[in-house]
């Protein structure tokens, strides 16, 4: 019990000290130092009154070759350009070719049966509203430099790793 209350008061003291320091810092800032520039994730550190140079746009890969999925449940990526495709309440340009009835003539991959199911697994006549907006899950790809690092390992490789290696199954 004693130890507990001691720990409690130490924590309280530390908190008060920190709060005091923060207050002093805030006061110092309001007195003279200019506020730290707000960094916008889109424009980077470029000040608002300066023009930023945007990164170059990479061309969408348009080879029409189906790509391997990185994991079993991955929504397949789109192997072609979809510039200006109209997907709204009037018309769905994706379904123009990927609908069940259009797939043969268009030689496309018809969307899977799951897209016709509502959340209670009832199969509907047409694409389920919750699956209607294709690019929520399916995206085209570009051969661009990744913005962040990634050490994703396919589960098949993961299972083959020796025990003790990072990311191994044992």
């Amino acid at each position, binding site marked *: 019990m004693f130890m507990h209350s001691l720990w409690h008061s130490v924590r309280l003291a530390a908190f008060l000290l920190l709060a005091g320091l923060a207050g002093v810092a805030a006061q110092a800032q309001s007195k003279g130092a200019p506020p730290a520039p707000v960094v916008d994730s889109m424009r980077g550190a470029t000040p608002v009154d300066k023009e930023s140079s945007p990164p170059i746009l990479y061309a969408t890969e348009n080879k029409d*070759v189906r790509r391997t999925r990185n994991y079993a449940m991955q929504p397949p990526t789109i192997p072609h350009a979809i510039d200006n495709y109209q997907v709204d309440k009037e*018309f769905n340009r994706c379904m123009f070719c990927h609908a069940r009835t259009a797939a043969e003539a268009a030689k496309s991959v018809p969307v899977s049966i799951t897209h016709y199911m509502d959340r209670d697994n009832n199969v509907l006549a047409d694409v389920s509203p919750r699956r209607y907006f294709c690019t929520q899950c399916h995206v085209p790809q570009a051969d661009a430099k990744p913005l962040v690092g990634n050490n994703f390992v396919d589960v098949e490789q993961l299972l083959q790793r020796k025990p003790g290696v990072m990311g191994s199954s044992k």
Partner: protein
Amino acid sequence: MFDLIKRYWKTITRPSAYYSLGFLTLGGFVAGVVFWGAFNTALELTNTETFCTGCHEMRDNVYQELQTTIHFTNRSGVRAKCSDCHVPHNWTTKIARKMQASKEVWGKIFGTISTREKFLDKRLELAQHEWARFKANDSLECRNCHDYGSMDFTRQSPRAAEMHSTYLANKEKTCIDCHKGIAHHLPDVAKAKEQ
């Protein structure tokens, strides 16, 4: 006054009695050139984008949509204006289309699509007219620029090359069959099939 009109009328009814044949031939020729020039200039004026977008129906609806498409902005800057796709280029069919367009003048006067809502309600019907026209003339207005003989399939995506070398080549399909809504937003096409 009456005498004056009578005198002119006599001259007009029998011009060869008052003017030389050479003058009448040459005069008729010059007048014809002037008339034709004026007619054609006026006709071409109705083919300009400024004319089409002079009315809010076109400017606020379809022209806005066109501006987001590749037929308006692209890497080489070649672009299509309204009449390139919606008015036939050769003379006879152009005149026929222009006569049909008198109904569009009627529509303008009576405000058939004077609001966004009216336009959206009417859009499917209007689109169907254009699709029927393209289907009937084998997408002639597309082909005025996009020549099948000049298409390099190796420069198309495999998917496009496949389609063009089969359905387009054997004339089973024409451009508009697959490229509806290439320059404007599409209405609910499913409704068209119901009718």
